């Protein structure tokens, strides 16, 4: 390759798009590093505190698309205080100052403000795509700036954010000249929607492929919207309370029939049970179905719908579908690749929902299954062994037994052998969450067999430090390790400090690590930020020896090239 001019090499690099591959290319030699950095357009930053915007821009001056992730994953479950960090404003300010031609920004678990959205909307003439996932801190006023100022906006995709809905007129802030929308997803907004503005916007967006509505959009509006956008590929229905004899229902049915490109259906945020039948005519085309928010739709209606969906590749559903419903899925959806079954009755006390039988049925019926998230009441080792045999291709396997520490309900044994079978059989496994009663043994298996494992979530598991050590020593590709309520302490934490340089982050909460252990780690590894999140004013972490033995409630550590962050709130102590 030394004999080719740079332009040729650059052209070859254009075909290499994955971040991993591009990172690998840049390490080959100085000349490739240089060519690669000037041609890189998309950058992915898994931890916004591992690097700063200035260094990012120095290395990649031709940046067009940036993905940033902020808070640790357990923030999704309220384990991280809101003010912990992950602020996007400094990034947007730096990008704006540098005049880089930013076109796309994707943020996950970050704090976004109206001010940053306003600045974003005004600073980048060619800005096209904004995707916000699990973010917070902004209002519909921020959305109004994006709508008003981004002349070439293609995607506005808001997934599961906490947005203060000022019930303003953000939808009417899209100018009449805006006709470029491809994606519009505002399902997570809680307030009212200007239906007239919405309909006019959809009508003048011939490229609109993905439209996800919030619960404020009623049935008759849905019918009109679908009639304006028969080219729609991905639809999120808002409210669906209907009278099947009504005229608007008839109009909806007619509109749905024309949507021959529809491949993905979701929403039904407030839905009457019998409403799904209007969609039966297009079910045979569906590849993705998300009914996990449709709490009012019971098993039988779900099953009737699914029986029409023979091409389904992705299914997100509530456990109200039951084991019987999963058997129907197993016999109908032979193309299924990803399944998520969420819990519907979180206060316990009633229906058994799904058990190991549903999981076994799915594994037997769906040979292409590679990703699963399964909340259930009970599990057995035998079932997991069977699942492992049926589906050795799992990439992501997440099993959550609702009651912590619950053993195999038939044998009363820990579930070590079952999960052991999974990691042994699934040689491509990249992500694992386990649950139920688990001893150090399961970690021995994970360390031994899970060679490709990148992310592991541990809760209420293990007996001694050996458990954590098996994982740290064995899983060479580990990137994100998150542990809660497990008896791992300083010995495991400090055994191999250099390991953390190969990982993105480690979270440990309600474990046995002490303050002095964390301090020793921070001393040995200056390239790590070791953060102690201490929400108890009463338990102020003291400097002297005695207090050093105090257990740390929450510790989050991550590798970084830019040292201690300056924006940590007072209850976060960076060692």
């Amino acid at each position, binding site marked *: 390759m030394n004999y080719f001019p740079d332009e040729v090499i650059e052209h070859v690099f254009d075909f290499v798009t994955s971040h991993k591959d591009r990172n690998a290319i840049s390490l080959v030699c100085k000349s490739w590093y240089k060519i690669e950095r000037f041609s890189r357009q998309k950058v992915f930053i898994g931890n916004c505190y591992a690097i700063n915007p200035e260094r990012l821009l120095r290395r990649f001056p031709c940046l067009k698309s940036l993905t940033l992730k902020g808070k640790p994953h*357990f923030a*999704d*479950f*309220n*384990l991280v*205080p*809101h*003010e912990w960090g992950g602020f996007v404003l400094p990034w947007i300010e730096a990008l704006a100052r540098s005049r880089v031609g930013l076109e796309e920004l994707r943020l996950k678990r970050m704090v976004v403000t109206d001010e940053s959205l306003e600045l974003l909307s005004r600073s980048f003439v060619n800005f096209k795509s904004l995707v916000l996932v*699990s973010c917070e801190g902004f209002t519909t006023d921020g959305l109004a700036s994006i709508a008003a100022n981004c002349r070439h906006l293609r995607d506005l995709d808001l997934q*599961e954010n*906490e947005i203060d809905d*000022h*019930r303003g007129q953000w939808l009417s802030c899209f100018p009449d000249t805006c006709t470029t929308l491809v994606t519009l997803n505002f399902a*997570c907004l*809680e307030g009212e929607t200007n239906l007239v503005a919405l309909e006019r916007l959809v009508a003048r967006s011939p490229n609109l492929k993905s439209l996800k509505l919030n619960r404020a959009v009623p049935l008759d509006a849905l019918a009109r919207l679908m009639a304006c956008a028969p080219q729609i590929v991905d639809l999120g229905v808002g409210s669906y309370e209907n009278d099947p004899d009504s005229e608007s229902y008839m109009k909806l049915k007619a509109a749905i029939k024309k949507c021959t490109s529809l491949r993905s259906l979701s929403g039904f*945020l407030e839905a009457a049970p019998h409403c799904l039948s209007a969609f039966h005519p297009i079910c045979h085309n569906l590849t993705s179905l998300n009914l*996990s*928010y449709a*709490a009012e739709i019971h098993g039988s209606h779900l099953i009737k719908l699914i029986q029409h969906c023979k091409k389904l590749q992705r299914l997100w559903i*509530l456990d109200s579908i039951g084991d019987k419903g999963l058997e129907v899925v197993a016999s109908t959806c032979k193309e299924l690749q990803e399944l998520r079954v*969420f*819990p*519907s*009755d*979180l*206060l*316990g*006390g*009633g*229906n058994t929902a799904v058990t190991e039988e549903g999981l076994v049925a799915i594994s037997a019926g769906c040979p292409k299954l590679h990703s699963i998230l399964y*909340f259930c009441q009970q599990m057995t080792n035998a079932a997991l062994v069977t699942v492992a045999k049926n589906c050795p291709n799992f990439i992501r396997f997440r099993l*959550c037994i*609702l*009651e*912590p*520490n619950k053993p195999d309900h038939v044998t009363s044994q820990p579930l070590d052998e079952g999960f052991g079978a999974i990691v042994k059989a699934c040689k491509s496994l990249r992500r694992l*969450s386990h649950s139920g*009663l688990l001893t150090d043994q399961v970690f021995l298996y994970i360390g031994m067999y899970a060679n490709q494992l990148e992310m592991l*979530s541990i*809760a*209420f598991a293990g*007996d001694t430090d050996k458990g954590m050590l098996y994982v740290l020593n064995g899983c060479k590709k580990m990137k994100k390790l998150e542990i*809660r*309520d497990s*008896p791992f302490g300083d010995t495991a934490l400090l055994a191999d400090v250099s390991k953390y340089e190969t990982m993105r982050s480690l979270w440990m909460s*309600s474990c046995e690590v002490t303050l002095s252990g964390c301090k020793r780690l921070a001393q040995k590894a200056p390239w790590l930020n070791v953060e102690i999140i201490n*929400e*108890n*004013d*009463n*338990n102020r972490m003291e400097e002297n020896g005695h207090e050093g033995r105090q257990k740390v409630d929450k510790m989050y550590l991550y590798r970084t090239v830019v040292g201690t962050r300056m924006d940590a*709130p*007072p*209850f976060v102590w960076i060692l």
Partner: protein
Amino acid sequence: MEVINGLNLKDTELRLGLPGAQEEQQQEVSCVRSNNKRKNNDSKEESALPPAKTQIVGWPPVRSNRKNNNNKNVSYVKVSMDGAPYLRKIDLKMYKNYPELLKALENMFKFTVGEYSEREGYKGSGFVPTYEDKDGDWMLVGDVPWDMFSSSCQKLRIMKGSEVPPAL
């Protein structure tokens, strides 16, 4: 003390107060709400169900918007207190009336709320509980019937005396 597999579940129990505070708050969420549809009285299963199951912070690992959506019995709102470093969240459906709610807030933020009267609002402490309703307006807690309040309350804010306008 509930000890399962060497873990003291009480340590990870969700309580409405800073850890170390005395717990008088409602603990029996699962018992009160438990809508036991099981016909065969599987009492062994029932007694094995620890009340702490539903009260461990962040467990099961489900995002709060899903929890709120699926469980119409649960309604988490943010609570801010002027001067406090971070916000909290409480489940409004855990309370049946204003005194219960106010007591929980008092315990959570270590303050007292004073006497409520329709004419003069809260007097005597300098702290005033307010909430944001569905229209986006900030209202005084206590004026409307409890059910109306709990279904329209989006957020709570405990204002400190100096910020409270004289009209309240």
